[in-house]
């Protein structure tokens, strides 16, 4: 809940109609500032709340930069960060500047329309943004997918949730919003379109929807399972891929008009995008295969897969991440093929790194696995190391390699493994308590039955007694009457 305070802003911020008090939007472009900055030329308009790195990068690359936010706190922050810029706060249609050489719409149109404005459609807002660009301007627009994986695997239903951050005037009911790749292409004729993964805000991958479905699945799965917190959309990626609808289920799309060409697959690495090879068709990622075998507790197949993976990456020169290796069955044996070259000096170290990430992810995401809850990540890592022919490593080194749960300060005191074991123990205690309670209930029921049984017995005895008394009396009367 927000405390009402006086809102201040630097002099380079101009409030226009629609400027919204107290509202803050998520910051966009954190992981791909350099990639977006490469698109900038001349006077540049940045629409939506940019991450500081992106804002600074754009400001350095552009001849002049204007930023449009809808929330006053956001505008004040950007205005302070970029004192030479012009910041507009409010409705895009009220911005008194145009003729921009570059327009970067880093937020979806739904995050551009302020609540103080009359509701307009997604299309109308996009048109308002585009109207500020020169005819030959470079335009990058970010379109969130209403049917994206992040929505389907999120904790909350954005149609009905009632969080403070859920106000949105052009949400899911807007009929003009594109919801498939074809609709995006129709909305931006002539534009280059890329699918964006794994989240509209936390971008890790740009991939062309035109690459093979297998290649798209492989990369989508790789980046969707990388963030080791939140929902695990891995099975959804696979299900959509098998349904032939993966490009339509991307969390977002990036539309590029007249900008620098973006390669078919670009992976976010730091603030840069790295062009990635497009793997062969007809195979799956080793990560996806491992996840399936893991949850099926198929240790023999895991052993074969890991051995094949280790053999294929043993000569070095490859990124050994399971998500960046292809795998397919040839008869009864797995064939694993790494396809992303990497300058590797020690292939054993690279394989330990990949294994540690696999194990860490498995533990943090609490996958069902062939290992019992008492097995620490260290033990599992060494088990996989033995399968790989790498043998074992020390606990200290394992702990250095194993990823920890990010952004969870409260969990810092214990390792994920310890916490998982604790949760399991507590689950057992809960089960035990439930059993005890059930037992006590049964005992109580029986105790309740006892008096009832006694009452019935007493009644019967009384009846019997009474009956015998009556019989005795009758006998007496009859005898007296003769």
């Amino acid at each position, binding site marked *: *809940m927000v405390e*009402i305070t*006086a809102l201040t802003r630097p002099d380079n911020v101009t409030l226009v109609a629609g400027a919204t008090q107290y509202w803050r939007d998520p910051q966009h472009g954190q992981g791909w500032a350099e990639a977006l900055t490469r698109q900038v030329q001349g006077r540049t308009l940045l629409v939506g709340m940019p991450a500081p790195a992106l804002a600074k990068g754009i400001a350095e690359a552009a001849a002049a930069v204007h930023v449009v936010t809808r929330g006053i706190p956001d505008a004040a922050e950007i205005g302070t960060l970029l004192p030479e810029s012009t910041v507009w706060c409010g409705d895009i249609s009220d911005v008194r500047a145009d003729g921009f050489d570059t327009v970067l719409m880093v937020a979806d149109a739904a995050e551009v329309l302020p*609540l103080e404005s009359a509701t307009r459609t997604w299309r109308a807002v996009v048109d308002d943004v585009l109207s500020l660009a020169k005819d030959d301007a470079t335009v990058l627009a970010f379109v969130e997918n209403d049917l994206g994986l992040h929505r389907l695997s999120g904790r909350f239903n954005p149609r009905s949730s009632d969080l*403070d951050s859920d*106000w949105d005037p052009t949400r899911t009911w807007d009929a003009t919003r594109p919801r498939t790749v074809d609709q995006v292409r129709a909305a931006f004729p002539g534009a280059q379109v890329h699918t964006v993964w794994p989240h509209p805000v936390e971008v890790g991958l740009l991939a062309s929807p035109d690459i093979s479905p297998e290649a798209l699945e492989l990369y989508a799965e790789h980046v969707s399972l990388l963030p080791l917190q939140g929902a695990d959309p891995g099975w959804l990626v696979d299900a959509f891929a098998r349904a032939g609808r993966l490009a339509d289920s991307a969390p977002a799309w990036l539309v590029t008009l007249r900008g620098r060409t973006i390669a078919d697959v670009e992976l976010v690495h730091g603030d840069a995008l790295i062009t990635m090879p497009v793997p062969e068709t007809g195979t799956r990622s080793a990560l996806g295969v491992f996840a399936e075998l893991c949850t099926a507790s198929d240790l023999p197949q895991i052993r074969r897969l890991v051995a094949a993976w280790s053999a294929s990456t043993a000569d070095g020169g490859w990124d050994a991440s399971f998500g960046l290796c292809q795998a397919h069955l040839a008869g009864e044996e797995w064939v694993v093929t790494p396809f992303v070259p990497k300058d590797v000096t020690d292939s054993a170290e690279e394989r330990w790194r990949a294994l540690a990430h696999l194990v860490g992810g498995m533990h943090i995401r609490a996958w069902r696995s062939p290992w019992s809850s008492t097995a620490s990540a260290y033990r599992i890592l060494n088990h996989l190391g033995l399968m790989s022919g790498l043998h074992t490593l020390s606990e200290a080194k394992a702990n250095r390699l194993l990823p920890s749960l990010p952004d969870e300060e409260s969990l810092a005191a214990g390792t994920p493994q310890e916490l998982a074991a604790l949760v399991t123990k507590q689950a057992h205690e809960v089960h035990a308590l439930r059993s005890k309670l059930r037992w006590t209930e049964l005992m109580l029921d029986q105790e309740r039955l006892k008096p009832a049984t006694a009452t019935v017995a007493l009644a019967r005895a009384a009846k019997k007694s009474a009956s015998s008394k009556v019989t005795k009396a009758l006998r007496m009367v009859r005898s007296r009457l003769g």
Partner: protein
Amino acid sequence: MDSSNYWYGHAHALSRYCGLDEPPPIRGIVQHGWTFVHGYGAAHKPPLGLTRFAWSDVCRRRGQIIGWRDYEPIGAPFLYLMATEEEEPQGREGTIWYPFHGTPDFESVAGDHQGLIDEILATETGPVTMCLYFIEYENPEIRRLYEEAGFRVITHGQRGAKWQGTDADFMRRQLRELRRHERVASNRLSTAMFYGIQAGCEAAIYGDPMELVDMKDGFDGEQLFRAWYPFMFDAQVDDKLGRELAAQELGVAHMLPPEELALTLGWTNG
């Protein structure tokens, strides 16, 4: 019932619209004046568990973004009063002028009243009725300034506080006055401006907005209003734009039929 529901005769206007002589307790808190924040005053935090009967949907949305919930927009009580008080056929003349006012609770207005008078005299061509809030009306020095300027000086009555001193005819008196005038004017965008526009007056906002002393942080929207609604700050406000804004902020689209209003306010079972 929350005492602010009675202010200005709001509860009475609502009950009359529902066919009741006296207002039963309202199951919630009715917004008592136009604001740009969350529908209530700086120190007025409606208790949880009671519905916030805001005037408009934009007000509900403003509350939503600061984390407030349980809003039900019903439209301003003034709209219900207008629906029950037929306009008597009479000519409209002159300007009713509402200088921005303080409140009995916190704020007071400080500024150059004589400067404002000079500007009004330079702008208005017809007779001027200066309607003072009861706080300024009860200040003989301020009242005399406007009287000596040749204005007709009135007040609509007492707002009241804590169930005491409320003039239930405040808003009714205000509606009658507004319907007698051709124009409504003020030095700030305020409730009275929207009422006046809705009651058929042409609108004007001009003159020194004056300073609100002891205004709570975040409750002085003067700069924001000029960014949001620049068209309102003119000696002759565009009629169409003014009416659209008044309809939005008073919640015309959210007015309820009598049966629904009674049910919503908790006056009938259901």
